[in-house]
């Protein structure tokens, strides 16, 4: 595949950014959930 570095790099960059964002949201959600009572969590 020509220009494989740019093509695979663009996929890697996209998925790495998405994974980082997802991880950050889940981690902060778990940390916050420890400090908030369940009755305040409308999604439960």
């Amino acid at each position, binding site marked *: 595949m020509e*220009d494989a570095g740019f093509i695979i*790099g663009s996929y890697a960059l996209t998925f790495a950014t998405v994974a980082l964002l997802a991880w950050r*949201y889940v981690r902060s959600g778990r940390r916050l959930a*420890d*400090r*908030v*009572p369940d009755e305040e969590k409308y999604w439960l």
Partner: protein
Amino acid sequence: MTTTESNLQREHTGRSTAGGTGTRGTRVIGILTLIAMVWLVAFGLGFSPADRDQDEAVRILYVHVPTIWVAYLSFITTAIASGMYLFTKKKSLGWDRLAGASAEIGTVFVAVTLIVGALWGRITWGVFWQWDARLTTTALLFVTYIGYLAVRRLEGTHQQRARRSAVIGLIAVLEIPLVHWSVRLWRSLHQEATVLDTDRNTDMDGLMLFSLFVGVVAFTLLYLWLVMHRTRGMAMEDYLDDRGLDEALVARRAEGDAFVADHATMPTAAPAATLGTEETT
């Protein structure tokens, strides 16, 4: 961690769940997203053919187009939620959180679009960046939403935050038509829309179109998953902000009461006058 935070943590230990912001719904969407992403990689990098003009570089478009689609979707959601906040009687902060979460996700996806687009440009045009109409308006869109997110962090109550950012969210969305039609309004290096061609002149190989479709579905599911987690996180942040403020007020009132009580038990003007009288006599 502040004293207030640790008190809150102690107070609620045992009452909270370990699940964080996840529910069965987010888990289902998450699994579907992962499956769609695997399909995207398989079709985008494997099964779909090379393009007649762009050759292998076309494979980048299977992530480039879905990321800008998610950015548009995010900013339109921000505008709708902002409108719902401003123009409904209830002024629910839920709309404000949806607007904020969506703008945050959209900004990240515009950044990804710009970088991945630069990689595509390097292969196709020979340069990473050109001050082309589409690229410049997209960069402007990115800067505008950075400003929106900065305004959300200004000092003030949650309702003040919601009001200010809702106005900006409604104005900023007007940039999307400008970005989308910039390739027609000005002479542009960037290619025109292929799938969303208003002249209905779509001419794409079936596997290419399918790969693009899989990408759009995968990233739309991802957006849903992210926005659900983020709005829930924001709801908890707001709750803790309010609790922190309440606790600080209670602590301040207690300090004030203690001060008043101390001074109420101390002798006041009379002993001083007595002392003065003794000295003069």
